[in-house]
């Protein structure tokens, strides 16, 4: 058992779980990793997240906290000695929460749609993704103030929320033969993505693209079969 009594119910394939892992790494926290296959969902998962039955769930002294954004804020509020993940200033904090919401409401559904939609519909969703990337390129330029991350010198909430999706973005690019994170269009984001992937809190935790591609293909097949 980890000394902080932390357990993370998660899965290597989930970008939302990755968000929590990065946050725990930033705070240098030990935790027990409990890998879910979701097929079937474990009793532990169903018991600790009865409402949504989804990963990630962070268990702190066996008390569950659900939803990646909420978990990260919890971690940031409990372990205040280590680098802050959210800004100290209330206005900046509101701004940071806004962009997390934007990524979850705009980018995630479009990416999901690309994975599961018919070919014709995919084009529309690719355009949506490109639009989001353009917006985020602008946000990065304005927020980072010339520094490496959305959070400034260190990885912050927006970096975690957005960066955790990069591996899946690569998978979508690969599966569809269409690149979106390109230097010609979003040069600051391309540079940021490299710096993010290299950060000690992130490196070694990103899923391998090849493994994720296999997972994505299997997932697409399962979903297609379920619809029939």
């Amino acid at each position: 058992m980890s000394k902080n009594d932390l357990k993370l119910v998660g899965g290597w394939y989930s970008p939302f779980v990755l968000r929590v892992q990065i946050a725990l790494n930033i705070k240098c926290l030990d935790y027990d990793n409990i890998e879910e296959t979701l097929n079937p969902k474990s009793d532990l998962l169903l018991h600790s997240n009865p409402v949504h039955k989804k990963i990630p769930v962070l268990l702190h002294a066996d008390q569950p906290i659900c939803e990646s954004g909420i978990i990260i804020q919890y971690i940031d509020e409990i372990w205040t000695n280590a680098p802050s993940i959210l800004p100290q200033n209330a206005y900046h904090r509101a701004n940071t929460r806004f962009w997390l919401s934007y990524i979850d409401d705009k980018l995630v559904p479009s990416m999901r749609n690309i994975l599961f939609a018919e070919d014709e519909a995919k084009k529309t969703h690719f355009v949506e993704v490109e639009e989001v990337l353009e917006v985020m390129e602008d946000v990065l330029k304005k927020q980072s103030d010339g520094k490496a991350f959305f959070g400034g010198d260190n990885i912050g909430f927006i970096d975690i929320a957005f960066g955790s999706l990069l591996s899946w973005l690569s998978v979508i690019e690969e599966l569809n033969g269409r690149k979106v994170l390109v230097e010609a269009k979003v040069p600051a984001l391309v540079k940021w993505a490299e710096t993010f992937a290299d950060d000690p809190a992130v490196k070694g935790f990103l899923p391998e693209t090849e493994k994720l591609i296999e997972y994505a293909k299997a997932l697409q097949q399962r979903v297609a079969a379920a619809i029939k």
Partner: protein
Amino acid sequence: MADEVVLLDFWPSPFGMRIRIALAEKGIKYEYKEEDLRNKSPLLLQMNPVHKKIPVLIHNGKPICESLIAVQYIDEIWNDRSPLLPSDPYQRAQARFWADYVDKKIYEAGKKVWTTKGEEQEAGKKEFIEALKVLEEELGDKPYFGGKKLGYVDIALVPFYTWFKGYETFGNLNIESECPKFIAWAKRCFQKESVSKSLPNQEKVLGFIVDMRKKFGIE
């Protein structure tokens, strides 16, 4: 320097209502600006260029968008009175979870109830009542989701009560018979001035829904 607080809003919006309640709970004076959503003001487009939606809270000229983000901001800035979120981080995480649940379930299911027909509407009605029952269970024996006092989750949820006559009329529902505890909680919230003076009555919202259905040709 005196704080300048402006709220860009639209009277039937449950999201705008959340901010109104929060400001009232904190006793904050503000300028209310009604937006015509068919003819959005330059101010709205400037303050919320990403979504172009209400509500927008403007504090000393700076915009805060998204209702729950604005409510948290209000709680953090005016932190010397009437706390809206719990002080304990775990309780705070739970409050955020349930407000997020309201966002994910109540609005979408409710929308299906008054805008759709047939199978889709039946599915929406089922989702809606199920969500209310889950919330009833979370409330338990507490007077409010926030415990002894009105809190973040109460604020996130009670605005939807103003839409209930609309849901009942067009969804052929009797919400009180299915979820009596929920209705009792909502009426308890309405006994507070911060809620009753900030929110429209159900009749007025019903009138709005009738107009919207005509406009969108829903019959």
